[in-house]
């Protein structure tokens, strides 16, 4: 069980204009899976490499259990990185790949063989040892890469986009496998992903990184329902933002007064609600009549664009409920007060 602290990390690649990582601080709780979420190309992989020791920061510190690991070479840190492309060594068999870390540490061969067999069983690839990496499917390669990392019993496991490039059903299998393996080993794990769903499913905590900064760090539910900024909300697929002013537990907006779930400090603010929280007809308190600008049937839900007094809301309704709603018509929608959230950073 190791907890990892990143403090004011900064790294600029030679020749690059902007820093890849700037003044980044993050605490990764021990024994948990933390998902580092952010759009592609946001410097997330760089952070993994910094923790693994494959890059040296220009400034800042990395500590495991309070001890700085900056002086340690990658092989001495016990932080194993699993690359997005798995990077199984093509010149070695699967067994040699899995046993690689132990061989490098000079462990006796019988022990290596035993541990390799165990690990292959654990990732549900028994008997795959003699094969070559090129003979494996993508999902199998991912599992070998995972086995190869875990066999060294690392203090910290760093997974870079472990689910990218897998089919939908393989993704779920792999998610479950990662979660199960993490539970059984208890290794502190940092998963990098650009997919909010993967982050929510895998991470006991999610750190959202936008523009090189951690903008919100907490349980996945919080990032969904209680975004810290409009940008966080938008990243999680919530474009709804209504300007107005809170006063005495009521939010005064162009849509009329809306009851807030609890007392909020008075002042101007930006109100948000997740599209799937919006109901048709009465529900949960506030009701508003709005004009239907567009409707789109999307299989699992129907998407409505609603207008009123310069405010646009997006609502996701169950297809059954949305039957009969017509473009250009007027509908009454419910904005349940328990689903309302005032963005802390105020009006945009």
């Amino acid at each position, binding site marked *: 069980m190791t907890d990892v602290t990143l403090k004011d990390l900064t790294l600029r690649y030679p020749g690059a204009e902007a820093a890849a990582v700037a003044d980044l601080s993050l605490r990764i709780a021990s024994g948990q899976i933390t998902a580092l979420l952010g759009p592609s190309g946001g410097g997330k992989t760089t952070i993994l490499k910094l923790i693994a020791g494959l890059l040296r920061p220009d400034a800042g510190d990395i500590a495991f259990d309070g001890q700085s690991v900056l002086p340690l070479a990658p092989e001495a840190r016990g932080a194993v990185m*699993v690359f997005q492309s798995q990077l199984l060594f093509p010149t070695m068999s699967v067994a040699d790949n899995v046993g690689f870390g132990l061989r490098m540490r000079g462990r006796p061969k019988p022990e290596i063989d035993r541990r390799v067999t165990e690990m292959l069983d654990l990732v549900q690839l028994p008997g795959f040892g003699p094969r070559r990496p090129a003979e494996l499917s993508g999902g199998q390669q991912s599992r070998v890469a995972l086995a190869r990392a875990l066999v060294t019993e690392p203090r910290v496991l760093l997974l870079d986009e472990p689910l990218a490039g897998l089919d939908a059903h393989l993704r779920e299998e792999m998610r479950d496998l990662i979660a199960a393996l993490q539970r059984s080993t208890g290794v502190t794990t940092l998963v990098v992903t650009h997919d909010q769903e993967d982050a929510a499913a895998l991470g006991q905590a999610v750190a959202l990184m936008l523009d090189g900064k951690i903008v919100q760090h907490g349980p996945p539910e919080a990032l969904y329902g209680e975004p810290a900024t409009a940008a966080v909300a938008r990243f999680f697929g919530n474009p709804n933002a209504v300007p107005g002013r809170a006063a005495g537990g009521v939010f005064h907006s162009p849509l009329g007064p809306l009851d807030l779930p609890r007392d909020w400090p008075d002042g101007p603010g930006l109100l948000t609600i997740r599209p799937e929280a919006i109901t048709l007809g009465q529900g949960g308190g506030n009701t508003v009549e709005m004009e239907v600008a567009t409707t789109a049937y999307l299989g699992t839900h129907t998407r409505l664009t609603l207008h009123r007094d310069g405010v646009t809301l997006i609502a996701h309704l169950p297809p059954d409920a949305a039957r009969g709603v017509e473009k250009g018509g007027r509908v009454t929608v419910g904005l349940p007060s328990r689903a309302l959230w005032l963005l802390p950073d105020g009006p945009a």
Partner: protein
Amino acid sequence: MPGGARTFLLLAPALVVIGVLFLGGLGVAVLRSVGYMPLIGLTDPSLDAYAALLSNRDFYRSLALSLHISITSTLIASVIAVGAALLLRRGFAGRGIVSFLFQLNLTVPHLVGAIGILYLFSQSGSFARLGYQVGLIDQPGQFPALVYDPFAVGIILQYVWKEVPFIGLVVLAQMQGIGADYEAAARSLGARPWQAFRHVLLPLILPGLLASSAIVFAFTFGAYEIPALLGQSHPQALPVLAYRLFTDVDLAARPQAMAASILIAAISGVMVWAYVALTRRRVGG
């Protein structure tokens, strides 16, 4: 047009040229080496030329010298080339100059390099003169014999100079294709830098390293002009011996020259095969 015929037509000119010039040249050499050329009235095949060559002590000394030259130069050049490629892969001041010089060097004929080596390393060459100017030696004879010497140091120096960029560029291209991530993965799994190189990168660059160094091996074994220029009077490198036999005014020596050329072909073929097989077993995954 059926695919097979089309393929054949595309290949035909190349096969004709290589078949006639290369195989034909080899074939004629074989025929002449056994003294069978009905066109010029030779109809009694015999292995006399081979017997004469193989019973000559000079032949074995030449063979040993040529093997020494090619094995030593290939090994040294390969090691330095891999080191240079590792260096070039990372950024360092002057990297642009090195890669320019690598490419320039590829275009410089061997002979030019050999003359440069001669002017640098002979006993009255630039280094010897430097030694004199700083008071290390009083006269040329005190400078170590590095050209026209029994250990073929000058010849090897020239080959190393010329082949490091060749192997280096091939290996560098492979390294760039592979990227740094495999080694990073190995490091992250607990490999020390040397282990990551030895167990991960080296097997990955092996195909390019093998191909290029095998070419170097064959070339240094069979090249004429460098040992002719930088070698000592006796023993001579095998190609120099073969050329001398070929240009002997005694026409009786010609079958021996042909036999020597066939032996050069056979030996370089076998050695390249053995080298590739051996290296693959020792280094391959």
